[in-house]
């Protein structure tokens, strides 16, 4: 492997004990929080593989909840996240699955927000703090959340993709990668766009107002 910086060897500053079981888990929590997009009331977390087997000793549960609370992977508060969640009235339930069908470090997260909104997310920690989100609600996808990412849920009608891309282009936002996936219903669809820079609130609102767009998520 080619190493480009001394700080790939000394660093990162992180909360232990393991980048995949802590930093990666925090990031999965961060993405779930962004996908819900409102204050969380209840979190049901199911752990698979090595997450299920070693979460207690690795503090993976604390890391996931820290991510749900918006902490980053080097926040010393991770250790205390369960208490903090309890104090905030966030109910957390951890379940274990014995299935081997997913990547060894996988978590399913179901969140309920203050408005009653519910979301589902499946994410894996794939090493060195990197993650892969493989499912959001009814959509199978493959999301690293390395770059600023925009998820647009919309009806399967002609012209939606073009109008979203148009708004981004008009605002000087370059699309690095883009995928469009159908859900399991007949006319629901999702667009995942990785952009070179972060999308502003104004652009987000403009996209959300487009005809046939049902939801916009910024990660």
């Amino acid at each position, binding site marked *: *492997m*080619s*190493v*480009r*910086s*001394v*700080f*790939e*060897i*000394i*660093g*990162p*500053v*992180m*909360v*232990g*004990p*393991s*980048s995949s079981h*802590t930093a990666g888990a925090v990031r999965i929590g961060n993405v779930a929080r962004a996908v819900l997009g409102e204050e969380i009331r209840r979190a049901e977390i199911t*752990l698979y593989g*090595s997450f*299920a*087997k*070693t*979460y*207690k*000793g*690795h*503090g993976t*549960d*604390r890391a996931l909840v820290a991510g749900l609370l918006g902490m980053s992977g*080097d926040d*010393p508060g*991770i*250790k205390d996240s*369960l*208490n903090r*969640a*309890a104090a905030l009235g966030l*109910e*957390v*339930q*951890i*379940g*274990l699955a014995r299935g081997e069908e997913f990547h060894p470090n996988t978590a399913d997260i179901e969140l309920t927000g203050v408005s009653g909104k519910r979301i589902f997310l499946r994410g894996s920690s794939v*090493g060195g703090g990197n993650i892969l989100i493989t499912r959001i609600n009814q959509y199978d996808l493959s999301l690293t959340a390395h770059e600023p990412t925009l998820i647009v849920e919309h009806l399967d009608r002609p012209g939606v993709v073009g109008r979203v891309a148009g708004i981004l282009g008009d605002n000087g936002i370059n699309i690095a990668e883009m995928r469009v996936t159908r859900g399991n219903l007949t006319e629901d669809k999702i667009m995942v766009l990785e952009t070179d820079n972060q999308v502003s609130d104004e652009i987000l609102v403009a996209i959300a107002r487009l005809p046939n767009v049902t939801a916009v998520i910024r990660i």
Partner: protein
Amino acid sequence: MRRKNTISELVAVAETRGCSLWQVILEKEERLQGRDRKDIWRTMEKYWAVMKESLDAGLQPGNRSLSGLVGEEGFLLTRYLEKAKPLSGSGSVLAAARAMGVAVVNASQGRIVAAPTAGSCGILPAVLATVAERTGASEEAVIGALFTAAGVGMVIDEQASTAGAKGGCQAECGSASCMAAVAAAEMAGGTPRQAVNAGALALKNFLGLVCDPVAGLVEVPCVKRNAIGAAVALLAADMALAGIESKIPLDEVIQAMKEVGDALPDSLKETSLAGLAATPTAREIEKRIGAGDRGNNHPGLLKV
């Protein structure tokens, strides 16, 4: 494709210019990253500050990892040092205590600096803090030593690996001990050649060391391997400063480490399927701290 870096090249540049290894490595970082030297230096200062915090936190009484398997080892060893005349020299005992302390901070979900990994994070800060104390080295010299250590780690990572899952513990604690030995020898006034000799002497002693964590946790035997990795680094630095050379140059030791790592079966590369992780005691521990048993943590909040 860019040619891979070697240790001999680093030494050659330092010798030609009559400068330290850390200067060569810092300048290289400037070129690679296109970043201002002061800015790079400040980042390393921040990392050292976090390392110092973890060194302090690690020696407090009452430390305990999340699983409870490890905790007060560093504290016990420093207390022993106050009363007894250690058999192996107070420097190595103190460094070993500090290394375990930092490793426990990691295992208790505290904040550390990966160096090169979280599992081996105790060795480098422990060795540098101890050498700085014994030589009266300035804060600046310690930052310089961190660049030297990082430069050596970059070569190891490029030529072999610094991940236990790829190369076994030799790639984690072995690399950390090697990096610390080079940095320690240079900090104590050794020439670049002596410094890399120290690294070779240290790393040779870890070849073949497997990664076999009990119950899959970064605790047993990792915490104590950090201790012994720190002590080996100091002894290797002393040997090199005394004029002892490694007959096998560091570049070739690193190459050997890669070959040994490739030859290790997967069962001995962080999978907890063999080695210490498969001993009867380890299996007992695994059962005892299994995920289903949450003890009295947060009753009512977590329903497993």
